[in-house]
């Protein structure tokens, strides 16, 4: 009788432990969907974003007392694929938030579906101004938006005699971000008396490999400045081909709407000297926080720290802070917590505006040139020329 009682009790105990909800276990991870391009034309940028987010997760360790699990999906920079991957991350994997995204086209496609997905989406690399106040669940904490970059670049041009009195030829990549970046720059440049050669600017297909026709067109125009809005990996490619045609040697200066990737700059070498542009960060920023972060990055990945990695790291830290502040993984609670949150990182305080869900932070104007001795063995540096406080870049709140 006693033996039977023990067996029945044991069975009941085992049944009980089997049916206790697993989420009660403290070790159940908080899942975050990381959506980045790992194949295609911007794969390197996507890889750097992934590195930044992974580094943040590793540093943070736990969220709400639970481990962080990053589930990475490749968008291939294609909006429909990104949406499908986001659905998989949310519905199948149980991701409580989405982070990452390279390309405004992909970001806008995800934003359009965010009500259905019902999780907060924090972009770390979408620059379109359409993101301001787009949706209560959509946030930006990452690369400067087009209006902020335009402000930085115009201020930089106005402040530098070698850039100011030039006529700029505007050429962009033919998609949402490029168009927005071109328009923002032209509007602001005209207000400041900067001469623009082609207000109806050139829009080159994103898959353009041979830039010779465009470079011939720039040569024929007789301008002495080029404003380019190309995805990061393509900037050195264009610069290299322009250099082959002698454009830079003829005195033409280049200003970029996006920060070139460091590995691409290394590959382009001397041809990539003399590219100006506003961005969040460069490893030339010399503050204790920046130096500490870039050395930690170098130690972990043994690759030159990039702007894409830095702002993705900061974006992830802001998201993690938001989840902790929310105290739960409830989507609305996280979204509410993200509004107004800030993180102090390698480029100072990055605050997500409570007004429009997009970040405000300081930025730098850089020029690419031969690098001094550095721990990363880099031959090209984005030399910091000027720093802009967050209030100067806007937009006003």
């Amino acid at each position, binding site marked *: 009788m006693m033996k039977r009682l023990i067996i029945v009790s044991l069975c009941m105990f085992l049944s009980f432990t089997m049916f206790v909800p697993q989420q009660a276990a403290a070790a159940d991870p908080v899942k975050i969907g990381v959506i980045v391009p790992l194949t295609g034309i911007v794969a390197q940028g996507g890889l750097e974003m992934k590195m930044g987010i992974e580094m943040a997760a590793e540093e943070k360790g736990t969220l709400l007392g639970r481990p962080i699990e990053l589930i990475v999906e490749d968008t291939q920079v294609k909006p429909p694929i990104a949406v499908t991957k986001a659905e998989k991350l949310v519905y199948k994997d149980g991701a409580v938030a989405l982070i990452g995204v390279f390309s405004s086209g992909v970001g806008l496609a995800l934003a359009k579906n965010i009500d259905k997905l019902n999780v907060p989406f924090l972009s770390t690399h979408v620059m379109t101004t359409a993101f301001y106040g787009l949706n209560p669940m959509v946030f930006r904490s990452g690369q400067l938006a087009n209006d902020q970059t335009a402000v930085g670049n115009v201020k930089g041009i106005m402040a530098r005699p070698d850039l100011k009195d030039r006529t700029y030829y505007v050429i962009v990549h033919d998609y949402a971000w490029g168009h927005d970046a071109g328009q923002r720059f032209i509007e602001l440049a005209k207000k400041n008396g900067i001469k623009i050669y082609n207000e109806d600017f050139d829009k080159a*297909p994103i898959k353009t490999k041979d830039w010779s026709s465009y470079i011939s067109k720039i040569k*024929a125009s007789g301008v002495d400045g080029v404003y380019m809005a190309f995805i990061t990996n393509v900037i050195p490619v264009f610069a290299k081909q322009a250099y082959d*045609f002698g454009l830079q040697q003829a005195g033409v200066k280049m200003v970029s709407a996006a920060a070139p990737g460091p*590995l691409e700059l290394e590959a*382009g070498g001397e041809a990539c000297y003399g590219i100006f542009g506003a961005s969040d960060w460069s490893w030339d920023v010399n503050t204790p926080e920046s130096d500490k972060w870039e050395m930690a990055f170098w130690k972990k990945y043994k690759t030159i720290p990039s702007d894409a990695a830095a702002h993705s790291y900061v974006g992830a830290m802001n998201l993690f802070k938001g989840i902790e502040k929310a105290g739960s993984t409830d989507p609305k609670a996280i979204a509410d917590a993200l509004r107004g949150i800030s993180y102090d990182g390698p480029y100072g305080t990055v605050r997500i505006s409570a007004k429009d869900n997009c970040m405000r932070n300081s930025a730098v104007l850089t020029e690419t040139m031969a690098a001094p001795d550095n721990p990363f063995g880099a031959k090209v540096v984005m030399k910091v020329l000027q720093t802009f406080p967050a209030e100067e870049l806007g937009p006003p709140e």
Partner: protein
Amino acid sequence: MGGVSTAIDITLNSLVLGGVFLIVAIGLNIIYGLSRVMNLAHGSLYALGAYSGYTLVSTGLNFFVALLLAPLLVGVAGLLIERTVIAPMRSRSIVYTLILTYGLMFFIDGLIKYTWGNEPRFIDLPAFMRETLPILGTHYPVFRLMTLLITAVVMAGLMLFLSRTKTGMTLRASSTIPEMVSCLGVNMKYVHIGAFVLGSVLAGIAGIIAGPLTTIDPIMGHEMLISSFVVIVIGGLGSLRGAVIAALLIGAVQTLAEFFITDLAMVIVYMLMAIILAIKPRGILGEGKFE
């Protein structure tokens, strides 16, 4: 910059672009014309040529030596592919090789990405090739002019090989009357191998000359594969002369469209293809005229 110098720039740009299209497309056409294999991995072999050239030059080898070696390496890769992937499927429908080479394209791209990484690479050219040459008011890159010369030499060599040598004539005959050629004692297995290796070598040549022109990245072959298909469809599937005409036409149309219309450049190219196919469904010189 005056009108004449701009016209020279545009003309040379279109010839350079057309030249690269031509070498890739001719390689694709030779493989299809002689062995009826539509090699969707051809663009990846082109990329492999560029990366091989990059690696050889990076090790300190002279660019011209790399120009000879890189295509040979791609030829060896082509030989391996033909023997291991294509040959076992030869007796089956063309769809099998189409699917297999499609998969092979991703395999080679993945291998490239794994070996060389994602970031773009540039081939370091000898100093004199990095200069520009003054031509009637414009300064044109020496390497681009060298590309024209290399294209001309490759095409002349290929035409001489196909029209003046016994092997070349056998290859041409094999494209139109394979049964007869086989009856004459020619082992068709070697014709198929030769076609695939020759096509691969041409892809390798195009890759190493396109490397310094544009950039080297793991997916550089995708766009080139599409452009090559446009060329061979317009020229006539399997037609070598058709490919020459189509490549020069596409090079000129794309360059002019990029210069004057910009936003719609590629649309114009595909519209041209649609118009030509509407008028001549088998391409300019018709399908299968391997001459």
